[in-house]
């Protein structure tokens, strides 16, 4: 195991784990990342599957030589940038304040 925590540290971890704030932090985090991961994986896999099995759709030209396949590929970039930005805003606003407060409590208790 990683270096064993001191008894004070262990007590601090256990106490924090049981607090409502920690439960809220965990719920907020999981509530964002689980649906988001499912969504972007599904969006990506759908794109891969359509590239394979839906040539009629993908080869449709939208303007000039630009077809749906290319636009959808570029859209994957847009959604990746968008989700990354969304997560950075969400975590800074909804998660970081709780994490900071709990972290400060830990430092006080573990080093007491």
């Amino acid at each position, binding site marked *: 195991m990683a270096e064993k925590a001191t008894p004070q540290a262990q007590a601090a971890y*256990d106490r*924090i784990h049981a607090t409502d704030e*920690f439960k809220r932090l965990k719920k907020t985090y999981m509530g*964002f990342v689980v649906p988001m*991961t499912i969504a972007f994986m599904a969006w990506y896999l759908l794109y891969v599957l359509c590239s394979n099995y839906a040539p009629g759709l993908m080869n449709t030209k939208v303007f000039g030589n630009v077809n749906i396949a*290319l636009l959808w590929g570029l859209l*994957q970039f847009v959604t990746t940038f968008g989700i*990354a930005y969304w997560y950075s805003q969400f975590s800074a606003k909804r998660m970081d304040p709780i994490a900071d407060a709990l972290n400060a409590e830990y430092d006080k208790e573990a080093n007491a």
Partner: protein
Amino acid sequence: MSAMSSISFVQASSSDDHQALTASLFLLVVLLTVGITFWASRNTKTAADYYAGGRSFSGVQNGFAIGGDYMSAASFLGISGAIALSGYDGFLYSIGFLVAWLVALLLVAELLRNSGRFTMADQLAYRMRQTPVRTAAATSTIIVSIFYLLAQMVGAGALVSLLLGVDSQAAKNITIAAVGVLMIFYVVIGGMKGTTWVQIVKAVLLMGGTILISVLVLAKFGFNISELLGQAADNSGAGSAFLEPGLKYGASATSKIDFISLGIALVLGTAGLPHILVRFYTVPTARQARQSVLWAIGIIGTFYLLTLILGFGAAALVTGDAKQRIVDSGGNLASPLLAEAVGGGPGSTGGAILLALISAVAFATILAVVAGLTLTSASSVAHDLYASVWKKGQASGTDEIKVARISAFVIGGVAIALAIPGQSLNVAFLVALAFAVAASANLPALLFNLFWKRFNTRGVLWSIYGGLISSVGLVIFSPIVSGKGVDANGKNLSLLPESIDISWFPLENPGIVSIPLGFLLGYLGTITSKERSSEDRFAELEVRSLTGAGAEK
């Protein structure tokens, strides 16, 4: 008559000139990186300095370093080459390699920074039995890194000899040995600080070079993308099929499944690559780890968008002999020869300068990536195998660093020794295989450890060894190793001689089987084991990984 001979004389001397220019730029890259390494080594004293650069890098710096670590020669030369040759189908690599970063951002980077220390095994062994888990994690780390390393080094040999115009086998061997010696030097002297700065400089050079060539390409088409695509399709000989899915992977039902299998491995592999994971330890906090991934996504995303322009640009603008050279190089020369074309074409001064510049950037790219891989494996040998498994945690930091430096020598030596005979084989598949192993062996173990309380030692071992053995094993029995036959020119397409055929697995990419298997085995191993002690420290791991309480400073 005299006019003709003077023309050929001009061409010959300009070819010598450009090789001299290329060689001097290569030398400049070497001197620059060696200088950086010496400069960075002054402040490398403790184990945290050596393994994690003193955790002193900012999110922006680490974002560039991640980009420098991740955008390998396989990306820079390989993807633009794949697009230049196969059109749209080459684009999948760009998309998979980028979307993969969301897995790292949302599920791995911050939690790993908070709960780990120096290596991937630190995180996996947090609540498990140390010796078996660290042995498994180190095995997987070393195998993934060596696969990746070999692909880069063999590529370096071929690339440098092509660019410098030396074709002898001895010159290629010397190039590989020189790259190996340089990477050993960066890692032994510079540790993580030196390696990180080499990667940052490389990322800046690579982005600068890529942006420059892309702008020049787009300017040729009045910044009209549609015209660029049209000319690429016309010039490719494939017509509009060049811009549509299926040119490379659409041939049969099997190749379509191969495409899906590759797509899954690309998107899940990144967050399990050990040399990427250790980068998250080089920043002071989880928040900086998040910042670094955000920067990395911006840099890497921009880069992959530009590879699209480079790839289609090469298809559109490179013609004649140069086009044949791209085909002969398997696509690897697409970017350098495109640079020559937009600079004014073969024989022009502008062309020679841009060709030399992009070649030097490609060389810097290879050096930075191999350094990161060597450091990661050497760290795992020293920190996991030597200090934990062998010395049971009783080794001093000084001894660990000493062992890490010796390991860098050994791993570098092994890589050189394997890469030299490996040149006669087509080793490009090793990059895709490294992603498949990372996704099948490492990612299941990391995610289960972070999110599943019941997960235990046997679960880790089954997922790592199961994912590792199944992905490598399936490739051994795939058309990559034997049974693919010969191409139109009678060239053997598999690694083994034509007379041997042990293949029964139809896909070249094992991910679609081995990734679910890695997760399944992690689950089965866990529930068949009676060990419950791993649950005792799950509360601690959860608090620490989500809040940063007690994280390594």
